[in-house]
């Protein structure tokens, strides 16, 4: 039996197992891309609209979030589209690939399913090869859909070559990170740490891209995530990023095979050490148990988000120096006005980032709350239920840890931006003041809490619908990240709590909104708590 024996059968099995998951991603992504392309002429159809957005896109704050693109000559609607959508779609595609790849390999292995499969006449590398093929098929199919969708949308300035470049470029970037997920699945010793490792590398390539984009766009070639920006699909079509991605993907696949050969099933390339013989004095209840189990994840998130914030802070001196882009300004307006203008630019940059940070900070908390349900179904709580431990205490141990984690993550991230940003400035008075920082904190925390409270409600009352929390968070994230550039209508931006508060510190905190958002969060938690006390707990 060859090492790849029965890969075909496993591919069919994988596709069948993941059919809803895959279908959902494909529909969402293809619909997002195509519908934006469809509407784009209406948003940026005229030359004056294009000229206005061109200036915005060149500002360092937007470059930090959407990538550096160069425009020459007459700029078309399609070029603006590529600038706004490429990196953003790539981010979502990477998330999809990391989820699919680790779910298809390491997660199955943790559940013991791989062991069952491998006991049959199946090649040693077949599960890995099947997962890789699944990724190839999903990305390829999605890429073709993108290209066809863009061709159908027929934006002014779009070319057939450019459409295919975007579709296949996103597909190859997705595949590249999917294979990275397969590799980390071989290195780590369980799915959670594989996910953590993969996202750390993803975050690193995002940071490299962001810093190089703002300072030296030529160096963005050093980040695989930056390659997508180099496609320049509608002005100077360039296929080399695709070849580079595919080449690196092939290398990662090879390394994954080597790592796979050097480990036992169920173990990682990094082996586990023996641990404590007795519990520490500290480990004595549900909260310390969560901390003991999740401390690496929690600390990882806190440190990661602070680094993320600090990285954004390093671009303050580039962004907050209007004289760089407009050297004559000081002679015209005088020093004070220049400082004021710099301050305003930084304020609006920070306000935008604050919303992004808040959305990111929700993730670890939401994971913890949903973990209450996944721990329940995986039987890990059964040992706790049989103890004199009320459901109320159990619920609030998870929920409390989650709220604290997200709150700290948000403050840490925003703090990273502001502290590093102010430190990088030549004139500190241009930067964000302490009171502006705290305004930013108070403005976004209710939003973080409402998202978390919604998860509590779902886990407490309708645990089967818990995936909705992620969907809703994604909606909130997309509507604030892309909302103004896509000129989304106000009601769309108001669908999620991320759109309820005005942008702070650019504007003041609206304390009425603040109060009722807090009240809403409390009500959600309260109903979730009542539901959790009443419902049957599910067991595997």
């Amino acid at each position, binding site marked *: 039996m060859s090492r790849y024996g029965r890969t075909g059968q496993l591919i069919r099995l994988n596709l069948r197992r993941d059919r809803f998951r895959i279908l959902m991603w494909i529909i969402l992504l293809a619909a997002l891309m195509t519908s934006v392309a469809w509407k784009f002429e209406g948003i940026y159809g005229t030359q004056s609209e294009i000229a206005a957005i061109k200036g915005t896109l060149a500002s360092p704050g937007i470059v930090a979030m959407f990538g550096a693109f160069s425009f020459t000559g007459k700029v078309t609607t399609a070029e603006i589209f590529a600038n706004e959508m490429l990196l953003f779609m790539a981010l979502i595609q990477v998330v999809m690939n990391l989820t699919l790849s680790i779910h298809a390999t390491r997660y199955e292995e943790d559940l013991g399913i791989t062991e069952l499969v491998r006991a049959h006449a199946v090649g040693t590398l077949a599960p890995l090869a099947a997962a890789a093929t699944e990724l190839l098929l999903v990305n390829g199919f999605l890429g073709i859909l993108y290209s066809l969708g863009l061709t159908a949308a027929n934006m002014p300035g779009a070319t057939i070559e450019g459409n295919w470049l975007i579709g296949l470029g996103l597909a190859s970037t997705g595949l590249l990170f999917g294979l990275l997920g397969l590799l980390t699945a071989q290195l780590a*010793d369980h799915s959670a740490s594989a996910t953590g490792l993969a996202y750390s590398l993803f975050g690193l390539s995002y940071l490299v891209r962001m810093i190089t984009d703002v300072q030296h766009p030529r160096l963005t070639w050093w980040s695989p995530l930056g390659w997508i920006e180099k496609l320049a699909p509608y002005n100077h079509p360039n296929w080399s990023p695709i070849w580079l991605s595919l080449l690196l993907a092939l290398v990662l696949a090879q390394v994954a095979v080597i790592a796979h050969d050097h480990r036992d099933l169920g173990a990682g390339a990094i082996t586990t050490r023996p641990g*404590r*013989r007795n*519990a520490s004095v500290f480990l004595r209840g549900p909260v310390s148990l969560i901390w003991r189990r999740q401390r690496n994840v929690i600390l990882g998130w806190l440190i990661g988000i602070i680094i993320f914030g600090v990285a954004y802070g390093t671009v303050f001196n580039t962004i907050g120096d209007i004289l760089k882009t407009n050297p004559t300004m000081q002679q015209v307006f005088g020093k004070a006005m220049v400082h004021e203008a710099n301050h305003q630019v930084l304020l609006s940059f920070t306000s935008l980032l604050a919303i992004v940070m808040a959305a990111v900070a929700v993730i670890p908390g939401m994971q913890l709350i949903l973990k209450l349900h996944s721990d329940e179904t995986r039987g890990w709580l059964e040992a706790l*239920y*049989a103890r004199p431990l009320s459901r109320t205490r159990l619920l609030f141990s998870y929920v409390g840890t989650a709220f604290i984690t997200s709150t700290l993550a948000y403050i840490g991230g925003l703090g990273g931006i502001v502290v590093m940003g102010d430190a990088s400035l030549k004139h500190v008075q241009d930067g964000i003041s302490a009171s502006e920082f705290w305004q930013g904190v108070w403005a976004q925390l209710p939003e973080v809490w409402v998202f978390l409270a919604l998860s509590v409600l779902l886990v407490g009352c309708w645990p089967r619908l818990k995936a909705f929390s992620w969907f809703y968070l994604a909606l909130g994230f997309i509507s604030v990240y892309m909302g103004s550039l896509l000129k989304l209508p106000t009601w769309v931006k108001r669908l999620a709590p991320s759109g309820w508060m005005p942008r702070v510190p650019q504007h003041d905190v609206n304390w009425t909104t603040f109060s009722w958002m807090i009240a809403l969060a409390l009500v959600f938690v309260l109903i979730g708590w009542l539901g959790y006390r009443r419902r049957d707990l599910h067991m595997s």
Partner: protein
Amino acid sequence: MTTPVLQINHLQKKFGHFQALKDITFEVQPGEVFGFIGPNGAGKSTTIRVLLGIIRASGGDATIFGKNVWSDSVRIHQRLAYVPGDVYLWPNLTGGEIIDLLLKLNGATHTAKTDDLIKKFGLDPTKKARTYSKGNRQKVALIAAFSQDADFYIFDEPTSGLDPLNERLFQEAVLDLKAHGKAVLLSSHILSEVERMCDRIGIIREGQIIETGSLAEMRHLTRTMITVTLGDDFDVTTLAGIHGVTAGHHPHDWQFSVEDAQLSAVMNTLAQHQVIALQSTPPTLEDLFMHYYTGKE
């Protein structure tokens, strides 16, 4: 008579349209080991989960120590120990940490008894739970339960992953609990284990308790196996109340089963035909089990 530790009255549980428990009624007395047997999917674990307050009964009621299992679960759990059938442990904690944590959650501590149990069961407490086999995961739960000083112990198929040596350790530990006047509810598939340890037995089928009582009481409900060698040509098939007659290897050798009600009549008749050898085997729990489940002997 003392008040029972566990009392279940016409307990019912519905999952949607599926009636998992139709009518469960039994009780467990202090100092008693109660065997709870039935095939897969009959409702054993569902019953236990209702008793633990994990799921809520849709009808009937159940009390432990005289307290309602749903609304008073926290106070009940103070004096209760439980070992689930499938033990899932937090993968990145060591066995030793988990044992200590579980004890602390009951306000108990790691004692010399705990160390003794760890040694006896041969568990390496420094290993991460992720690396434990099914048997080792069960040992963790068993050690935590046995080192706890509870009044009521619930074991849900606790030995399904243990080797015979550890299985015996388990049985000794349970008999020790019994000697100390503790009540035990033991759900099991291993009928020899139940036969050896349990004072009373409840048999569950499709969500219903179909029989409770001691093994001796239950034996009356079924047939005794007789193997006999007679001295003459008597044809045993003429006897009333016997079943499954087979002739032995030699002439005059017979094997058959007798309904308990006819036993003395059959014996009297046989005695008149020069019994050379006679062996009577009471039904084992396995025979009883088969009797209830298949309707055959």
